[in-house]
């Protein structure tokens, strides 16, 4: 019963939020948020602390009540329903496992209450423990498990009653780096296998990019952008999104018309045309900046110098200063092999290319 056929995210709205606002005293936590989540989708709320993402999750769970706005889940208006009458499972950063109950009793906690026959409960718990990869943990206590194992149990407990919606509140933030990476993949795989509509809250952009079907970037109580990880990364809708998700170069520029922009003393071609004289900012990811050692540079490369090299393992981060544009140094990511093979060092002359399609122009 748990292993439903894989569901591909589709457009049929499972959850619809409309004009949600919430105030805590003078603080406006949510300033009118509207959003639709499709059935079987994994949506990640991403943003800095205080952006309202956790408040929004708690409102969906009925743990807080929105001041205004409505929530419809699976065709049912749940705006005013108390938490206990809604249909969801939830996992918290702190795991919130009951410390005095065994793993078995923790997972069975919601099942026992439904007056199911004992055998059915036992079977279901075993099934879930197997599903999260801890089939033999039943007789242990939460305190005897590692953080990652406890979070798997919390997930099993949340899924036990087959809820229509799974809510994950920073589920990986309390774990160490290695467990975090492993559990990230496991949660995503499990979610896709069960096809359960899932909302996850995180402040970790890498987590969001790797797990989400769609990312909702939030800032100061508003939604900045909703899109697939690729859209959010490559086509940030606002300067905030560009800055918050991944590293990015920002170049203050003035339009010269026809997609050309003046940046300091050089001109840059982009795919976006603005009226001449308009001020704008050009955003470019470090890995899009082309760095060419002398001799291999294409004709249109801008002459530049290496200002510093930072070794980061698989790749190197190179600081480059374009001649005549010393005020705005750029950062470029190049593979380690390239940095090593070309013998780059601070002060070396290089040619820099800024590919027009990769440049995002924002006001």
């Amino acid at each position: 019963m748990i292993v439903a056929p894989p569901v591909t995210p589709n457009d049929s709205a499972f959850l619809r939020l409309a004009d949600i606002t919430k105030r805590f005293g003078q603080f406006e936590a949510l300033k009118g948020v509207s959003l639709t989540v499709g059935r079987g989708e994994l949506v990640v709320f991403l943003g800095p602390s205080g952006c309202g993402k956790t408040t929004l999750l708690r409102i969906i769970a009925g743990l807080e009540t929105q001041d205004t706005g409505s929530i419809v889940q699976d065709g049912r208006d749940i705006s005013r329903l108390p938490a206990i009458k809604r249909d969801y499972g939830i996992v918290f950063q702190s795991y919130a496992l009951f410390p005095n109950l065994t793993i078995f009793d923790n997972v069975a906690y919601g099942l026992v209450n439904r007056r199911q026959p004992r055998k059915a409960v036992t079977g279901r718990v075993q099934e879930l423990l197997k599903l999260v990869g801890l089939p033999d943990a039943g007789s242990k206590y939460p305190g005897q498990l590692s953080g990652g194992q406890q979070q798997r149990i919390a997930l099993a407990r949340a899924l036990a009653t087959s809820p229509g919606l799974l809510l994950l509140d920073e589920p990986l933030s309390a774990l160490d780096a290695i467990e975090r990476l492993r559990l990230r993949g496991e949660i995503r795989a499990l979610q896709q296998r069960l096809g359960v509509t899932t909302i996850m809250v995180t402040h970790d952009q890498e987590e969001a990019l790797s797990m989400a079907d769609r990312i909702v970037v939030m800032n100061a109580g508003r939604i900045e952008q909703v899109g697939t990880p690729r859209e959010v990364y490559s086509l940030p809708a606002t300067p905030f999104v560009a800055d918050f998700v991944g590293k990015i170069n920002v170049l203050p520029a003035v339009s010269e018309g026809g997609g050309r922009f003046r940046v300091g003393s050089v001109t840059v071609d982009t795919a976006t045309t603005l009226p001449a004289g308009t001020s704008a900012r050009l955003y470019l990811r470090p890995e899009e900046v082309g760095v060419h050692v002398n001799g291999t540079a294409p004709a249109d490369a801008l002459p530049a110098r290496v200002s510093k090299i930072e070794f980061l393992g698989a790749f190197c981060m190179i600081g480059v200063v374009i001649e005549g544009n010393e005020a705005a140094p750029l950062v470029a990511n190049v593979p380690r092999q390239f940095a090593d093979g070309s013998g780059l060092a601070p002060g070396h002359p290089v040619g820099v290319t800024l590919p027009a399609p990769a440049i995002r122009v924002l006001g």
Partner: protein
Amino acid sequence: MSSVAASSPGVPPLPRVVPQVHWQERLAQGLLLACCAALALFLLGPLVAILVKSVQDKDGAFVGLLQFREYFATPALRESIWNTLWVATTVTAITVPAAFVFAYALTRSRMPGKIVFRMIALTPILAPSLLSSISFIQWFGTQGVLKHLLGSTSIYGPLGIIMSSIYATFPHALMIVLTALLLSDGRLYEAAESLRTPTWRKFFTITLPGAKYGLVSAAMVVFSYTVSDFGIPKVIGGNFNILAIDIFKQVIGQQNFNKGAVVSLVLLLPVLVAFLVDWWMQGRMQSQFSSRAVPYVPKKKRWFDLAMFVYCATVATLMLLVLGMAVYTSFIKLWPYDLSFSLRHYQFGLIDGGVISSFFNSLEMALFTAVFGTAFIFATAYLLEKTRGAGWTKSAVRLLAAIPMAVPGMVLGLGYILFFNHPDNPLGVLYQTMTILVLSTVVHYYTSSHLTAVTALKALDNEFEAVSASLKVPFYKTFFRVTVPVCLPAILDIGRYLFVNAMVTISAVVFLYSPDTQLAAVAILNLDEAGEIGAAAAMATLIVVASTLVCIAYALVTRFLLTRTQQWRATPIA
């Protein structure tokens, strides 16, 4: 782009969402409201009764502040205020430094025997405050062994009150200061060491500031205790008048409830001030706390350790001499003429005289107080901390739970008479019953128990209730299946605290007992009054034994729970 989500200012605001309240939430809020009402009835009711009585004359007519004017016009009564304050200040000035050095020795030295010293220093908690007075009378009284040491000064008076109060308050001060010193951060001392800070400077720049709030809190507790205590001055005070005695005289002696109400309001004032000072200081302390603090581990220093050992040994010996004299008195024939061993005080004084029934009354009362008090206090704290909504009820309960600390037992007791003995009060049937003794004792010791419960509940994960709701499990099931088992050590601690205090309490209940419900501590008072000091000592000894047994049982049960049923507390394997 970000302006898309902004609501334009011209649009009328959407209707405010009013959440449906589930019946379980209503149940929780209803229960909390009931708890709040009970607290108001059994705490505020009596206090209001005192206020009302203080502005009335004997016939119940409103006379404004006339009673107060009469009171302050009586020199003897005015003198009581001064007496009360200077005695309490002296006790505070001696007890707190003495307890601080003791706690310092326990935490900052490597002297041997720390556990034994600590246990001995805490024994006064197990005894009624009267025990020390009886003991000091035996040592320094008219027929005392060491009477000559005092010269012409009499133990019956301020000296006796001060000595007995120091003995009785020492463990209270010690526990508070000890906690403050234990909270200190070892890393601060390591940093100071690396900067070659001299020892005295470390003491004045790290130790004292760190213990500052604990010292203030201890001072306020000792001061309040001494001001409020009635047993000690009654037994050893002689003709020395203090406020607590004045209330007793006005109420029991002259049946002047109006004047009694006035005096109790005067008594309430210094305790209230001490309470507010403490509250204000505790509020400022929060930011000091660091969860990453490393406990301080003292190094061996021969002379310092020796000095500390000598100090603690002296204090412990003195305490044992006080307790020992009371126990000894109960087992000899007739002080100081016939010192042969005898059980006659127990046999003739207590059993044959029928006074022993008051000991069983005390056991019964302490048991009821521990069981029902703990249940009520913990349930109320749970509803307060872990359920949603009921905003103003929660504020009211928080305030009501804090008030008892600021109300001396005499004041509470008098309030109970005035409130429950009022002809129009349907609850008057409770007057002079076991029930009212239990109720007044629970209220009297409410604040500390409440704080213990709240601390334990705050240590639980905040999301247990949210998880239960998402799994559609009613809150009360989670309360019984998770909250209570996890908080069991704190619950038992509250039960022990209430039991031990109920065994020794006297100030509130002295107004409320009937011949059928006389309590052990009150019996001591009456035996002492009748000159039966041997029997009084025997009763005090019985109380100490009962309380000690309960504490041992508590220690064993807690240990059993920690090793068996709470095996989940085991350190993580992975």
